[in-house]
């Protein structure tokens, strides 16, 4: 989510994270920055004065950043809090991350959108377990600039030796964190020494103050040059316009640029770049724009436009760091949902290479990951994703994992490496996936000509490509074989659906994904099928009658209107739309690919929650 400043591209904005252990004085430091930069309003200040005098102190700045009642009662921070201040040189967003060890997941949250970290160290205590943990998480999440603020110098008489020995200890630990620059500042948040300026308490230190560093260090991390544009939504206000809306993930997109569409690998050229009512020559992160292409290509949400000369890895087998954020430990035999760019797909952790000891940075053998643990894992995905290593590209290198049962976000993931798919390998993987598959019937209902069979075919192709076992039961085909003896009375229609449901149930029980495409006009018949089969997803293809009638692929509407056939659904026989379908597709407003993506996503969600 970009801020106004980013959207406007006008002023320099630095987003930084503050981290430290309990009692390192973080709240006081932030309070001091806000107070000194006039980031606090008078009425807030007066309420803090009131609260401070209750504690017999003049002005307790830590109370300024205090928010929730529960934490006020416990006296600890329990979540990430965001604060805002500005100086004539820059605007700042502080992600105030908690010191308490069990809330490390929030520390990772704060890091994921920060460009710099301020790590607090209590001069009396030195580098603690939490200090290392916080630094490592910030580093894993891609922060390559850190300020180590050695606080409470006033309590050790501004002793240079202590400062130097903490600096030495920290640099030793920091050496193992590749490509990272550390800046060390001795200060006292309580009396303000070296926060904004120096009052001369430490003549031995001639470096910049904390604020001077914050105002001058570069704001942006090095961005990847390759174009990555994940499609968020297809914009189709009318038949003549087809645009792809999304946020530029990395690189620059230019008018006339040759791009490749994934997964189809079609080549095309960018025709226009819309930014509201303006047309742009080029766009770059974090801009959100609508792109059109010179050729007609069928793209949907989750597909990607990329530079023609620098393709991402197309991979269903990735190696990644995971930060586990759930109280339920990681399970190897469980399918999770993986959200990567604008898509959600199914994935399984097939191997845990090792855990990382956050004190020594050493790798430890382990069978699982517990809450707040970090590990390197292998993940098998049900569909290939288009990705880059996180080190090179935050937008295509990051993902989250969701537990399909609880809907909780259970992990943050950073891609280390991705194995490109190869023909032979996919087949092998397919075989193993099939063995673990549980069955499901996907029931497409809707008027004649609504587009059921077309979507059904597209879904079948996609699921087959993912190595799943698929059967298609088409209403028309069934009518010519299994149900050749039946007509179109209500009774015969019911019997037709009953037979289809019976066959579907057998196949579903044996682990197939059964795609049924049948008008199935009556609600009761479909509900009976749902009860018989159990594992059931209803897809309502809701294309309006007028549109179906114009399409009339088999001239049936024409015949029905002419009175040549009787009891035709939608004309002289009712269609009862589903009340709670799992998916609704309207082929009048969305492309086949868009519809099929919705159905495939529902299928994956369903089978992931079944098999886990």
């Amino acid at each position, binding site marked *: *989510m970009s*801020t*106004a*400043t980013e*959207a*406007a591209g006008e002023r320099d904005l630095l987003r930084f994270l503050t981290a430290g252990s309990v009692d390192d004085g973080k709240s006081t430091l932030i309070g001091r920055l806000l107070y000194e930069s*006039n980031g606090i*309003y*008078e*009425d807030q200040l007066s309420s803090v004065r009131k609260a401070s005098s209750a504690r017999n102190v003049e002005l307790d700045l830590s109370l300024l*950043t*205090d*928010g*929730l*009642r*529960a934490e*006020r009662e416990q006296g600890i921070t*329990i*979540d*990430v*809090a*965001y*604060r*805002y201040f*500005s100086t004539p040189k820059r605007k700042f*967003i502080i992600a105030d991350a908690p010191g308490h060890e069990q809330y490390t*997941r*929030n520390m*990772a*949250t704060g890091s*994921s*959108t920060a460009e710099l970290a301020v790590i607090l160290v209590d001069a009396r205590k030195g580098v603690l377990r939490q200090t290392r943990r916080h630094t490592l998480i910030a580093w894993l999440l891609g922060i390559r600039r850190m300020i180590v603020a050695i606080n409470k110098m006033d309590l050790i008489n501004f002793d240079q030796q202590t400062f130097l020995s903490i600096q030495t200890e920290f640099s030793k630990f920091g050496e193992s964190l590749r490509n990272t620059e550390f800046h060390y500042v001795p200060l006292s948040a309580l009396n303000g020494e070296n926060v904004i300026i120096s009052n001369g308490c430490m003549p031995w230190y001639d470096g910049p103050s904390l604020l001077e560093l914050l105002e001058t260090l570069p704001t942006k991390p090095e961005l990847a040059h390759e174009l990555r544009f994940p499609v968020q*939504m297809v*914009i*189709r*206000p009318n038949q003549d*316009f087809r*645009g792809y*809306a999304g*946020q530029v993930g990395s690189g620059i997109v230019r008018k006339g640029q040759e791009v490749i569409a994934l997964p189809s690998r079609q080549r095309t050229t960018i025709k226009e770049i*819309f*930014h*509201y*009512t303006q047309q742009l020559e080029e766009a770059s992160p974090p801009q*959100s724009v*609508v792109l059109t292409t010179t050729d007609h290509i069928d793209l949907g949400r989750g597909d990607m436009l990329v530079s023609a000369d620098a393709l991402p890895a197309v991979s269903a087998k990735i190696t990644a760091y995971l930060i586990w*954020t759930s109280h339920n430990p990681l399970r190897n035999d469980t399918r999770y*949902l993986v*959200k*990567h760019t604008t898509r959600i797909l199914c994935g399984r952790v097939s191997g845990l290479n090792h855990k990382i000891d956050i004190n020594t940075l050493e790798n430890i053998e382990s069978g699982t990951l517990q809450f707040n643990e970090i590990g390197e894992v292998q993940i098998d995905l049900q569909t290939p994703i288009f990705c880059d290593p996180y080190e090179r590209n*935050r*937008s295509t290198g*990051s*993902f*989250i994992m*969701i537990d399909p049962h609880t*809907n*909780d*976000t259970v992990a*943050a993931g950073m891609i280390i490496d991705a194995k490109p798919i190869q023909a032979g390998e996919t087949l092998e993987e397919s075989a193993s996936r099939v063995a673990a598959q549980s069955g499901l019937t996907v029931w497409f209902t809707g008027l004649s000509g609504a587009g059921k069979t077309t979507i059904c075919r597209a879904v079948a192709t996609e699921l087959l490509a993912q190595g799943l076992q698929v059967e298609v039961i088409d209403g028309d085909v069934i009518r010519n074989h299994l149900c050749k003896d039946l007509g179109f009375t209500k009774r015969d229609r019911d019997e037709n659906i009953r037979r289809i449901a019976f066959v579907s149930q057998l196949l579903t029980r044996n682990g197939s994904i059964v795609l049924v495409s049948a008008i199935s006009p009556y609600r009761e018949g479909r509900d009976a099928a749902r009860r018989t089969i159990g594992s059931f997803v209803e897809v309502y293809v809701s294309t309006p009658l007028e549109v179906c009638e114009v399409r009339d692929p088999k001239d049936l509407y024409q015949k029905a209107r002419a009175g040549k056939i009787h009891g035709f659904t939608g004309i002289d026989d009712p269609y009862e739309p589903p009340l709670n379908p799992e998916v609704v597709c309207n082929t009048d407003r969305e492309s086949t690919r868009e519809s099929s993506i919705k159905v495939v996503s529902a299928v994956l969600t369903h089978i992931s929650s079944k098999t886990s």
Partner: protein
Amino acid sequence: MLYSIGKDSSVMLRLAQKAFHPGPIPFPLIHIDTGFKFREMIEFRDRTCRELGVRLIAHTNQEAKREGATPFKLGTSKCCGLLKTKALLDVLAENGIDAAIGGARRDEEKSRAKERVFSLRDPLGQWDPKNQRPEFWNLFNGRVEVGQSVRVFPLSNWTELDVWEYIDREKIPVVPLYFAKEREMLIRGEQLISMEHGIKPLAGEKTEMVMCRMRSLGCTYCTGAIRSTASTVRDIIEELKFFRRSERENRVIDHDQEGSMELKKREGYF
């Protein structure tokens, strides 16, 4: 999308236009009308919706109104509970809405600093600050169980100054109440209260013509004005740069009890 007619809502509306342009905004706007809003707000709302061609669902808790719910009779806390929180939960349930987008910002109020961009609410619309999903990068988890819902706050990281600078840059129309002019106001202690909706002066109180403007917009009784001469967007931006009072200070509801916004939110207030 929740539409409160204020400056943040005006920015949200422009962002929604941008997000779907050249297509139309695909979702309706919901306005919780307590019946105590400024007349100029309602006029502005209707004109805006007409001009942009967006669908508006205006909802009022009629039952509470019939029973005579007013801030004078019930106190602001109970009045808000009925006319805002209850009305919002009802309209979301009636329309089967499981995701509502709002313009709240983290810099507005202390309890909001820790609010997520996607804030999960239980079937009663309640927020549990200890049971929030972590949010990494811009990968939001919008999955909900039946009955649960999410409130989505795209302006989370904007400040009041950001909002006005954006309004200036994009030339976004806002309700004229934000601009200073001479208005007849009731003076109560340090507060300036509008005379709309039949507020009765207490003994010894009188009204005066005051050069003032609204810094935030809500119900007439609960939204105090500030003395100001800022009559253009640029004036407001200049004023804000020197301002040392927070935006919600003049909101009666924020102060009705200690940690009050947080309590309201736990109960389902937006």
